């Protein structure tokens, strides 16, 4: 028993000693190998089939969602009636306002000069009449309000698809480390303990959910193009405006399980020490690291066949509403996700404002606001109606 106690010490060993353990590990005999291989292969085939089914389901549902929207057709006879009603309403407002003005002028003395202050009072009084709000309501019908902001000129766009797709892919690849954006040295990583008070403020990658709760791993970035946070910022400016980068902290604070996209100030901490902050990129003792779980985030496959809604379009800016399958902004169109496929009305979406950078005549992302389910469906139906 005592002998075994010495060897218990070898549990949970450091990675550097793992090579020794591998060398001393018993061989897996052919019979056992075949058994283990068969089990893994079977599980792999099952999961691959699930992924394929999900892809097919998504593609089918995506097509149905786009084509299957019920367009509301008003009866033909309703048109002249509504025009007449609108005319009566507008005429009523005009006549009513004029009558009220005349009444006030008569009461205060028509034809005499009216002091400025009294004119303001009169205007206020008019605005309190019952006709005025109806006029405002008629104008309001042209606008949609999303989280307190007005959204105008809503269209299901094909014009901006490529621009939005390209920029969003580039931006997401950048923060999710896809497509080999930066080279990493997997052998060089540091580990901190996550403070239990750390608020995991969003959905975690499903396969990492348990292990991420109390450990934070950072893998060393080894890339000449990005040796510091400053280098990364320069790289990110190809996709984002300065304004966005300055406010990125708020985005992560509010919507993700990272404290910020990049951070430093951990130099006093040693490996294994506890921290209540977690970053995508970390500058630690002069080296740049990336959070290991960023690499494990779901792949953002761009817009795919999903509809794209554009609003508030001007010569120098426009707002795109990108549908997501899940509330996680980096998981949209993630067909490999465990999340069930959803109808357009139930989709989450992200509001992305693009502005034209005059220096390079190219579009940059100025803000990204995630919305709950329902918003995209509402905008989509509105655009389809118009």
């Amino acid at each position: 028993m005592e002998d075994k106690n010495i060897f218990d010490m070898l549990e949970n060993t450091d990675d550097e000693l793992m090579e020794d353990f591998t060398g001393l590990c018993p061989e897996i005999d052919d019979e056992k190998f075949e058994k283990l291989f068969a089990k893994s292969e079977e599980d792999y085939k099952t999961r691959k089939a699930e992924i394929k089914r999900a892809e097919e389901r998504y593609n089918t549902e995506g097509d149905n969602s786009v084509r299957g929207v019920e367009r509301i057709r008003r009866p033909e006879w309703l048109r002249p009636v509504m025009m007449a009603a609108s005319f009566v309403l507008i005429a009523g407002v005009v006549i009513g306002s004029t009558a009220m003005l005349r009444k006030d002028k008569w009461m205060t003395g028509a034809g005499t000069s009216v002091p400025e202050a009294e004119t303001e009072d009169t205007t206020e009084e008019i605005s309190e009449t019952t006709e005025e709000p109806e006029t405002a309501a008629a104008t309001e019908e042209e606008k949609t309000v999303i989280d307190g902001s007005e959204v105008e000129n809503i269209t299901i766009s094909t014009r901006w698809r490529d621009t939005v797709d390209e920029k969003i892919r580039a931006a997401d690849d950048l923060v999710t480390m896809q497509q080999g954006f930066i080279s990493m040295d997997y052998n060089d990583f540091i580990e901190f303990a996550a403070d239990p008070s750390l608020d995991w403020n969003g959905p975690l990658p499903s396969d990492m959910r348990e292990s991420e709760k109390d450990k934070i791993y950072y893998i060393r970035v080894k890339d000449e193009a990005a040796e510091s946070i400053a280098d990364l910022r320069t790289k990110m400016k190809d996709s984002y405006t300065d304004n966005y980068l300055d406010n990125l902290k708020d985005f992560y604070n509010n919507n993700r399980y990272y404290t910020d996209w990049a951070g430093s100030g951990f130099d006093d901490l040693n490996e294994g020490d506890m921290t209540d902050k977690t970053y995508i990129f970390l500058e630690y003792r002069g080296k740049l690291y990336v959070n290991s779980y960023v690499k494990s985030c779901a792949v953002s496959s761009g817009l795919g066949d999903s509809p794209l809604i554009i609003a508030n379009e001007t010569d120098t800016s426009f707002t795109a509403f990108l549908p997501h399958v899940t509330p996680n902004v980096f998981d949209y169109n993630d067909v490999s996700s465990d999340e069930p496929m959803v109808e357009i009305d139930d989709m989450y979406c992200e509001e992305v404002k693009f502005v034209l950078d005059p220096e390079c005549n190219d579009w940059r992302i100025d803000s990204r606001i995630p919305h709950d389910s329902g918003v995209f469906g509402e905008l989509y139906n509105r655009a389809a109606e118009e």
Partner: protein
Amino acid sequence: MTGTELKELFHESPEECHRELMREYGKYVYAIVFNKLRSCGTQEDVEECFCDVFTEIFLKFEYDDSMINNIKAYIGTVAKHKAIDRFRSLSAANSHSVYIDEEEMAGLVSDFRVDDHFESSELRRILIQNIKELGEPDSTILIQKFYYNRKSAEIAKTVSMTASSVRSRCTRAMEKLRGKLAEAGITV
């Protein structure tokens, strides 16, 4: 085989590629998984986790090319994470967790510091070093006997000896190890 070669093989035959992946990195993954689950899992648990790791790797290998250049480190990371997950679920199932009130926790926190961590890492390093210095087949016999809990008959096949020779060799090797550890100031 390199990651690129494996990827080429994948295009020819995914199943052969998977088999080769498991053959190449099977021991490595097994060593990692066993290291994490030794204290709380059965042999079946270790094997299940081992299979899960390779299922995950097969999937990633198909859909994600970015790890090809450093496949071993990637596999190591996946194995470690999977083993930690399994360790947690097994520990929870075995009700290994105990209630600790805040006062006790404060004491524990103040006790568990980097010094302790460093000390146990250092002890492990010395132990492994001394086991390796015993030479073959003693180091293999000791590790397989006391760390991997294998029977003498099973070890005998690995080192081409009889079971009784393994037992006597094991006793002598253990004595030698004790002596070496004592010289290093470690009493067992």
